[in-house]
């Protein structure tokens, strides 16, 4: 399995996609940090300019990369079918579920890298922007917890992407569907139907992040650990269903 994970990591290192998605991730993180820090204290903004939580909330922008990890996971799997590399992959490793597990592990490691870079970037940018506005950097509140929650959420979206890709297999359908879902559908569901929303991946990650008043649903979320377990369950259940249903199909 170690060799298979190494092979999956080498696959990722030898194409341009991960670097591109990392740049997009950092752009999203930057947007989110800017939105939080630059609007603080202005009319309609959720946080005041001197809110002790400001730095912590800005720091949690590091979780903006979840969607890109989801997309990376989907592409990692669907490209194998689009380019036909699934054939050599399964010739080397005829037990297809082993390839799936290797991909899940590999993207978890990549997700950790994305998350770590995002946290450092979000921290540096937040401090920079706060100083620029002449505001204090308040290192208060559960900062470590926020950083860990950011890391966890970003890391868990990669395996979910792999599982979704394995289930759908059609690259365009999977990516477009995932983007439409995570940017539009899920936000609506979490806002309008909190009873459903808290059980969705978005609700679960909001539960892990626990940003208090900033979260889209108030007091409706699962406990942080529950949210984390729910995200893991999504990845595991979707992977099992894919391993049973779609991965066994003929490669004709």
């Amino acid at each position, binding site marked *: 399995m170690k*060799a298979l994970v190494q092979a999956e990591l080498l*696959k990722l290192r*030898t194409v341009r996609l991960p670097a591109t998605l990392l740049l997009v991730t950092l752009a999203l993180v930057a947007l989110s940090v800017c939105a939080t820090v630059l609007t603080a204290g202005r009319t309609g903004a959720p946080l005041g300019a001197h809110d002790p939580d400001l730095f912590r909330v800005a720091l949690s922008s590091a979780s903006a990369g979840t969607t890109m990890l989801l997309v990376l996971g989907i592409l990692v799997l669907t490209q194998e079918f689009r380019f036909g590399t699934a054939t050599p992959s*399964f010739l080397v490793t005829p037990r297809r579920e082993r390839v799936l597990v290797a991909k899940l592990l590999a993207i978890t490691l990549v997700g950790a890298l994305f998350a770590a870079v995002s946290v450092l970037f979000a921290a540096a940018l937040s401090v920079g922007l706060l100083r620029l506005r002449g505001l204090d950097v308040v290192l208060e509140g559960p900062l470590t917890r926020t950083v860990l929650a950011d890391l966890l959420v970003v890391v868990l979206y990669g395996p979910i992407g792999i599982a979704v890709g394995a289930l759908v297999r059609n690259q365009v359908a999977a990516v477009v569907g995932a983007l439409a879902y995570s940017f539009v559908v899920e936000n609506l569901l979490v806002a309008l139907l909190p009873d459903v929303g808290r059980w969705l991946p978005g609700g679960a990650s909001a539960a892990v992040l626990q940003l208090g008043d900033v979260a889209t649903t108030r007091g409706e979320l699962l406990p942080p650990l529950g949210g984390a377990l729910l995200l893991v369950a999504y990845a595991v259940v979707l992977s099992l269903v894919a391993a049973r249903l779609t991965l066994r199909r*003929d*490669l004709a």
Partner: protein
Amino acid sequence: MTTLAFDGLTKRFGATTAVDGLTATVRDGRVTGFLGPNGAGKTTTLRMLLGLVTPTAGTATFDGRPYAALQRPLQEVGTLLEATGFHPGRTARDHLRVLAVAAGLPQGRADEVLRAVDLAPAAGKRVGQFSLGMRQRLGLAAALLGDPPVLVLDEPANGLDPQGIRWLRDTLRALAAEGRTVLVSSHVLPEVEQTADDVLVVHRGRLVRAGTVAELRSEGGTRVRTPDADRLVAALQQAGHAVRRDDGDLLVGAPAPVVGQVALQAGVVLHLLEEQGGGLEEVFLQLTADAVPVPAPVWGAA
């Protein structure tokens, strides 16, 4: 050494039967041509052999084991399928390194096999820029990665220019000379005729002929010229061989040595004794012609 066996192998896609009860053996240490027109079921058969397509019925095995049961597949069976299976943005060397790592082989094997297929100068190029012929070479390099005793090659000559086809022929000969078992499919007979020892001919998913190239070649019949035709015809017919008169000569449905033996025993002088050239191709065309399902050995149709 490994023997490949197909036993009642069948694949149905809906109402279509792509492969229909194929039973055959591929002997070890020999080159076996897997022949048939396009759509005969060759690719589906090979993909079932390699565990990529699940058979509706029957088995395909390597020394009794299905592909999925091989411990180190790349080191046991080298595979070249149609020239897809490459990420266009990945370089040739990286494509092979990925396979090597997954198979537990040293990454240095990538450059070794690229040299073996004359692709070393393009090692750092992205596969998206490769011609079809270069992809075929890269595919063959991947097949050689694990230095396997068995090679399964699906239409390896596709997309190769005449030099490439000659190169492929030489390469296959060299690989067979090293004692490897080679199963190579083709819809163009001359591509494998000079390389193969044995042939399996499939048509519409069924095996219509299996034998050595020499056997099938002699089925083109033997042309005989003799001043004493009547006596030779009688002797040959008595020995159970089909005979037909053709422009003053006789065409006999038997290999030349057999005809010579009969003539000697009948005391008949021969002026010409010649196996029909192009016999194999004729046999192939007849075996796979739509009008002829499973013909008896043909002879002298020229």
